């Protein structure tokens, strides 16, 4: 991809972030019934805090001024102060994000490898018993709600594995670094498994259908006519081309991974970005809700941009 294409995609990503920021502002400041009017529903609020915030954000100024003030504050990393723990929102969110990233990364990698494996296998043996079995399992997993899978695993395995939180504080008085990591890993097994099961179903189905679509192309017929073996065709003709839709799939599944993560974190009380957002919603912690939406949206847009760049690197046809 040339410099121009890169710039075009980057400007779309930035434009999207800008639009998300604007929607965020609009939702919280312009619609009636915003943060300040619902004050009575906010726990731990004091008139002092209210005045401090009103002055800090300039809530007495006209909406347009408020908008630019909000943008200005945001650029400087100021997302306000959480109503519930009265700490800066950005700090809270970054801590939560640090807990979410390992969970999501590990689950995504496992689910992708598994999905690729079974997806290719069932596309190759289309119509076989294996294909039917794999597709059925995938459809069922795809259809089951994430929170349901989580609850089911809790009832089945909650006795043997840690079922809540990220670490057991009371197991060791002074845990060593590795003891602590091992403890976190043990706590991660159930939420991670739930997330893997959630993502896996869709992955398999899409990889299978992407491959099937490629297999119908004329160049595969040509390859067969040349007398190449099915294995060679699959590995060096079909799979290489199927990479494109698969990359698209990855880019577009970030949104659903986010959704799955929120549910998994709630069921297993994992202190990540999802349960932070949930607690903010429950406690009507408006600055945290606003910040949480922004952080999640910006990271999804960022990964989408990465996938877009990767996509055009892989596909010479759209390199312009």
């Amino acid at each position, binding site marked *: 991809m040339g410099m121009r294409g890169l710039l075009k995609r980057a400007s779309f990503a930035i434009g999207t972030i800008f639009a998300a920021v604007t929607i965020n502002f609009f939702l919280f400041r312009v619609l009636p019934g915003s943060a300040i009017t619902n004050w009575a529903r906010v726990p731990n609020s004091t008139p002092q805090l209210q005045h401090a915030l009103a002055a800090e954000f300039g809530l007495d100024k006209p909406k347009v001024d408020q908008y630019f003030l909000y943008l200005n504050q945001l650029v400087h990393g100021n997302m306000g102060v959480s109503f519930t723990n009265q700490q800066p929102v950005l700090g809270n969110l970054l801590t939560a994000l640090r807990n979410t990233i390992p969970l999501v990364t590990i689950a995504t990698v496992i689910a992708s490898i598994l999905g690729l494996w079974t997806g290719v296998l069932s596309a190759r043996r289309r119509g076989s018993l294996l294909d039917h079995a794999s597709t059925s399992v995938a459809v069922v997993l795809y259809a089951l709600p994430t929170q349901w899978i989580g609850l089911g695993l809790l009832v089945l395995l909650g006795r043997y594995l840690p079922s809540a939180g990220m670490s057991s504080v009371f197991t060791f008085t002074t845990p060593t670094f590795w003891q602590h990591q091992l403890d976190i890993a043990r706590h991660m097994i159930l939420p991670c498994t739930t997330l893997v099961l959630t993502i896996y179903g869709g992955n398999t189905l899409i990889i299978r259908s992407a491959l099937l679509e490629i297999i119908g192309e004329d160049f595969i017929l040509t390859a067969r006519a040349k007398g190449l073996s*099915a294995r060679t065709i699959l590995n060096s003709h079909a799979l290489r081309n199927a990479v494109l839709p698969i990359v698209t799939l990855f880019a577009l599944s970030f949104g659903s991974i986010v959704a799955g993560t929120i549910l998994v974190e709630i069921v297993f009380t994992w202190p990540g970005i999802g349960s932070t957002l949930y607690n903010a919603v429950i406690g009507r912690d408006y600055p945290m809700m606003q910040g949480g939406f922004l952080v999640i949206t910006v990271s999804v847009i960022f990964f989408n941009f990465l996938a877009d760049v990767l996509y055009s690197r892989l596909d010479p046809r759209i390199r312009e």
Partner: protein
Amino acid sequence: MSTPILTQPEASPADVSGRLTALKDLLRERPSVIVGLALLGFFIIVALLGPLIEPYSTAQQSGAVYGPPSLKHWFGLDDGGIDMFSETIQGARISLLVGGAATLVSLLIGGVIGIVAGYFGGILDIILMRITDFFLVIPSLVLMILVAALWGPSVVHVIFVIGLLLWTTTARVIRAQVKSLRERGFVSHARAFGATSGRIIVKHILPHVAPLLIANMILTVANAIFDETTLDFLGLGSASAVTWGTLLEHANDRTAVSYGAWWAFVPPGICIALVIVACYLIGQALEDSLNPRLKVAHISTRFWRIQQEAAEDQQASEHVSRRRARLLPQRK
């Protein structure tokens, strides 16, 4: 140009019998559609009958707290000693209602945007597709949570929140289809006879887009029910309504797990899964029949057959495959 089963290329829109045969072909070729229709029909009937077939009232206790499934209480009892079987039946009503209504909202928005962008093209197309891309990229569920939380919990709010954020794939697919339809002979003939744009859209474009719209609608219902379940699970639906989502929420919030009361969440979860599977079976089969390319397989010798050599409209098929990638991961 492709020749999908459900849309005869130059057939007149009123060709109902042709369409019926196409439907029969579809049913014969894919028995899974019958399974899907039966499942969906079953749940719709259950939802409609609702109060008539609920064995107990869901307003009062009818047995022990977290009583296990028995002959008297098929699905056991929940944390308030309320019959789970009755609650699951009642849940079907609101869950399906919300799923269906939200789908209609999203279909209306997505259909109008897709047709307008595809038919008129130009700057209007660019602007509308930019907006669509924006909503496609941002994590819609998070925005749904935010709007539902600010708007306040209510069934109607949930319907609109989901409908207003779920239309993107519909708009994209319909636009691609309309764009290729626009170039066909019958549209330019109609224009040559002096038909207005409105008339062409209603009389000539819409009937050809309808099968795709229906396939899309059915897949959208699945997404809408997922989103509804999630919002209810987060306590953003109506507090008083019994839905499959709120049943899951109560199981999670009210210690069903530490009681080991699996019956408090297994039935609604299975119901959700069955409805989603039904939608998936119908929608996928419809969509596959609209995309004949998928039937051709040059690699597996067991299924060595080329049904129709369809010189595909490259752009339309690309959109279908991209959309395929988009549709599934929307799951929550």
